[in-house]
């Protein structure tokens, strides 16, 4: 566990050494929120939820994209001799999870300032956000680890990850609709169950497959 946290800290140090990294993400969130907002002019509760998750998805794709691109090949070889692949994977997932939670709150704050807050059940919304951050960090980390081995990893990450995100996204949107009270559905537990079972599928599969995909 300590070794994993060490790796996460190294990750964070590398990222924070470049000022552009985190501020780039914040700017990305801001400018995409601004574009969407200037198209919509106003955001009724339903559109607020949709806008939120569309921006969130693309921001998280952008942020996670360079998960495996930061270090040189040589360093990975070094890691490979030092760490078990799962330790490396866990470190990357934890780091990405923190990043996604960060994006979630930045985006929520930006939309809150720009368009108000239509969320009535704020607890449900945060739980949904946390669940989606967990699911997406596992899924995206696995997909980037595949895409990094190809020649055009940026576009391939999007092409491979976006369709796989949709089962998650559908449930997230339903839960958000429940949290903002735009659906007559009064029982969100079905969606919650489905979302958590899909997420556990993603987690199980990625933990199983990563060590296999990683060796090269």
């Amino acid at each position, binding site marked *: 566990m300590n070794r994993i946290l060490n790796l996460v800290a190294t990750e964070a140090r590398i990222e924070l050494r470049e000022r552009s990294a985190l501020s780039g993400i914040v700017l990305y969130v801001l400018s995409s929120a601004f574009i969407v907002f200037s198209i919509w002019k106003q955001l009724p509760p339903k559109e607020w939820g949709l806008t939120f998750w569309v921006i969130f998805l693309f921001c998280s794709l952008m942020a996670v994209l360079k998960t495996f691109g930061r270090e040189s090949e040589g360093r990975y070889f070094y890691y490979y001799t030092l760490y078990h692949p799962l330790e490396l994977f866990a470190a990357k997932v934890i780091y990405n999870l923190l990043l996604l939670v960060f994006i979630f709150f930045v985006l929520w704050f930006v939309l809150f300032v720009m368009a108000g807050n239509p969320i009535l059940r704020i607890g449900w919304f945060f739980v949904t956000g946390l669940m989606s951050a967990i699911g997406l960090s596992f899924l995206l980390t*696995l997909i980037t680890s*595949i*895409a990094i*081995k*190809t*020649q*055009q990893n940026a576009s*391939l990450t999007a*092409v*491979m990850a*976006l*369709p*796989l995100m*949709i*089962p998650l996204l*559908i449930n997230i949107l339903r839960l958000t609709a429940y949290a903002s009270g735009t659906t007559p559905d009064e029982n969100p537990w*079905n969606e919650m169950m*489905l979302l958590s*079972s*899909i997420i556990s*599928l*993603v987690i199980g*599969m*990625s933990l199983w*497959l990563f060590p*296999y*995909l990683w060796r*090269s």
Partner: protein
Amino acid sequence: MMQESTTNSSFRLAAWKWAAMIILIFVFIAGWIVPLKPGIIKVTPDRAVAGEMIVVDVVGYNSFYLTDTTKLRAWLRLAGDTVIQAHHIQAWDDRNLAASFYIPSVFPVRQEAYPLTLVLDHGSEGTSILPNAIFITPASEQDTAEMKLWFRDKIEHVHEKAGIQYPFRNILSETIRNTYFHVPMWFCMIILFGVSAWYSLQYYRNGDIDFDRRSVAFIKVGLVFGVLGMVTGMLWAKNTWNAYWSWDVKQNMSAISLLIYAALMVMRSSVEDEMQKARLTAGYNMFAFVLLIPLLFIIPRMTDSLHPGNGGNPALGGEDLDNTMRMVFYPAVIGFILLGLWISQLVYRTDKLKGNL
């Protein structure tokens, strides 16, 4: 001499391939040739006022009204067993007839408008039904004595047409035959993707490049079947939903599943190292197949959909698939799956030959 021996040996086919061919020939012939039962396409006028005598012109489909005009009977049904019978029926030709009804000025129930179902029975040609054929507006003056004009009994002694026919359903009509082609395509796609995931698992265990070749062949053919399923579905949707694409949840989910596998093929083409390519394919393929299960089997069931089998619409086992249709549908499923497996094998072999060149 050499050529003769090669043609002889290559002509030996396994029994299941013969079975696939025979089944598919049966499916194509029976699926297209067997006629539909008689039905009603149109009724004019489609609205009327209560308390008046109306003459309804009926346009039939696959009907033979002139065969024996004395055997024709017609009813307008309000709900359940509450019906009025036609006073007089005049058949003009096999496809057109006129039936006259007196609509009572009072109704057993009180509504803004009364949708009536037209039921037509012929002694030898069978029964045909048009739900909500005529909408009746309530009369301004109601005569309670006319309540006795409503019969409170079942429409009895209706006839079944002899012989083999598919049921006639309104809106669906001839497109009901799509059941034999559209549905098996998806079954076949799922089976092929499943087999492909299985071969990926074998590659994961053994690392034999041959399993990679097999799993890719199955994905390629599965994609073709998926596209065919989508095209047949879109043509059907144009005829019944009046749009090729209406963002129905089933349409979306199937398009997404095709996108996932198309992404896999794109990913393969951008990796050069063979072993690397095979390993990434195996990993992504198993991951995608597991995520395909909620995508295709759980999420569409939780959402409203126009698609048969969703949102209370009948599908397999419902009234749309009667025993006559089952006799073609089940063979169609088996036949198309066998055909898919066969084509995948051929693709695998040609890929292998190309790789060896």
